[in-house]
């Protein structure tokens, strides 16, 4: 009965969607050479029936990626909807390298058909030409898919516009705050509350298949790690030892969970739990704080934060018994909370310098070059998009928690402004 109850309860919460954390994107720093593209408004006979702007969504996705400079509709000389009607010389003179044209048709009750084409303006070559059918709610999904296809065709890298993010939203004021774990589309639209509590929630972590979220809840005024299935709403308690239960991180194969536990005298160390047997293996054993574990791509070692040498620094250790941690960060007195890019070529982390707390990246393949990519002063919780192109992180703006994006090369920065609430700890879902 108890199990059934929690299923019913969380299912209810999931339907009680929170439509308030929509992002307004402000590009605060742009790439020097973004690719110019024009996404022409789509032909739509039944504009009022659909009241949906496919081209606008594609345009916004591409602009938000930081890789493209999109053309304002008011600057367009005409609005062709098929390749046959494009005056390529004119569009070339307006400095466009690429063009997207198409149409949206209402084919039946709640049935729509989107036709789109991508052209190289220089060569006049058609690079993509597809038709997608969708119902009304499916139009958003279809538009993101088109943006993904355009992104991949031009850049040779999979687009991440159809993915999701999880984050914590703290609403209300101390001491009457409500905490919500929210899952939204990558553009901040369509937010759904996964769980909520009067006590803090933190550390959302995606399972590799994107079906479950692990997180920490203080709902009993003790820290506990839960795993919740997003489809059924069912959740299970994974770790509720005395003291600290923190920082869950799924292994790449989804069979193990790295986490932080404490001894009775408060020593935090990193452990690995076998999710089938619940057996724990202690990975670190040091009197300092060892926490914030993150898996290497091969699932054989962990990156983590430790203050064994004084201030927090980032280390890497194999999960086999007897492996000795190796220190990775040496610049500055505070380097913490590593996140690894999907191809493990780069690590994003939080560093402290005179600019406050900022996001930095380290090259993991070459000489370990470090680049500070955000301005601070309160930038924490970096998380890579599944294509590795962008890092989402938590920042503060006029005393409020906001989410922000920075491209992995540091060239493009954007803020995601929520309409209300304090947003924390973004975690980008896998593809």
């Amino acid at each position, binding site marked *: *009965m*108890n199990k*059934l*109850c*929690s299923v*019913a*309860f969380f*299912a*209810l919460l999931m*339907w009680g969607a929170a439509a308030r954390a929509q992002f307004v994107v402000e590009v605060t720093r742009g790439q020097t050479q973004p690719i110019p593209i024009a996404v022409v408004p789509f032909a739509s006979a039944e504009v009022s029936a659909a009241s949906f702007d496919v081209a606008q969504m594609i345009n916004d996705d591409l602009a938000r990626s930081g890789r493209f400079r999109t053309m304002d509709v008011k600057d367009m000389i005409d609005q062709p909807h098929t390749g046959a009607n494009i005056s390529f010389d004119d569009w070339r003179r307006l400095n466009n390298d690429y063009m997207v044209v198409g149409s949206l048709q209402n084919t039946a009750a709640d049935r729509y058909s989107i036709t789109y084409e991508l052209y190289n303006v220089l060569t006049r070559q058609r690079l993509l030409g597809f038709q997608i059918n969708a119902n009304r709610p499916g139009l958003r999904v279809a538009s993101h898919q088109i943006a993904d296809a355009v992104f991949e065709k031009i850049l040779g890298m999979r687009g991440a516009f159809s993915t999701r993010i999880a984050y914590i939203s703290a609403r209300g*004021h*101390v*001491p*009457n705050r409500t905490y919500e774990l929210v899952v939204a589309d990558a553009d901040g639209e369509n937010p759904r509350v996964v769980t909520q*509590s*009067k*006590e*803090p929630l*933190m*550390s959302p972590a995606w399972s590799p298949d994107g079906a479950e979220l692990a997180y920490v809840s*203080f*709902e*009993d*005024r*003790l*820290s*506990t790690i839960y795993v919740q299935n997003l489809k059924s709403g069912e959740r299970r*308690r994974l770790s*509720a*030892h*005395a*003291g*600290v239960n*923190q*920082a869950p991180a799924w292994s790449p194969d989804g069979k193990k969970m790295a986490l*932080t536990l*404490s001894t*009775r*005298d*408060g020593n*935090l160390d990193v452990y690995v739990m076998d999710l089938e047997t619940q057996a724990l293996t202690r990975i670190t054993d040091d009197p300092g*704080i060892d*926490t*914030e574990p993150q898996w290497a791509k091969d699932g054989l070692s962990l990156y983590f*934060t430790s*203050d064994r040498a004084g201030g*927090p620094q980032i280390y890497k250790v194999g999960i086999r018994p007897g492996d000795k941690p190796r220190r990775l960060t040496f610049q500055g007195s*505070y380097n*913490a*909370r590593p996140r690894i890019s999907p191809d493990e070529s780069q690590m994003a982390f*939080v560093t*402290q310098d005179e600019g*406050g*707390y900022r996001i930095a990246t380290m090259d993991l393949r070459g000489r370990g070059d470090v680049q500070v990519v955000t301005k601070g002063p*309160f930038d*924490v*919780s970096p998380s890579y998009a599944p294509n590795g192109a962008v890092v989402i992180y938590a920042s*503060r703006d006029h*005393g409020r928690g906001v989410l922000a994006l920075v491209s992995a090369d540091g060239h493009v920065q954007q803020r995601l402004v929520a309409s209300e609430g304090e947003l*924390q700890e973004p975690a980008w879902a896998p593809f």
Partner: protein
Amino acid sequence: MKRTISIVLLLAGTIMLAGCPKKHNVNEPPVAGTQVPESSSASGNEGASTSTNPLGGDAANAARSLNAAPLSKKIIYFDFDKSEIKQEYADIITTAARNLTGNPNLKLKLEGNTDNRGTREYNIGLGERRAQAVRRALLLQGVSESQLSTTSFGAERPAVEGDDESAWSQNRRVELVYGP
């Protein structure tokens, strides 16, 4: 069709909820520093005890009255990035030790907190370090280990909102919460 299903499920959920034990859907609103911590049903939780004993009622009453003390008697504040207990809080420690040694059924939970600078999970470690500093001071004064437990909220449960030193200094703290 989809919509009908949602409504049916919603109704079913509501009905199921009506039959649920209360603790599943209710989190009592926290009243700062005055709430007796609920004993945890978590498996493997050595710190909390759910057993009842004949003196439990007395300890509950004692905990209630101790928790009703003014904040200045049950919160210890810390300097930035420090977990040393400052001299000015010696009285709070001594009084707490006396309360606990005088009533062996009384329990004390030490809730460690940090300001909101730095990474969240590392801050959990710093908050735990502060709670442990208070725990060690109490053990030195003869308090039994079994009467003490710690929880770290890190930066997650600020007493005061804000991104300046006046807020930060009030958030770097350990709260003493009594229970039976």
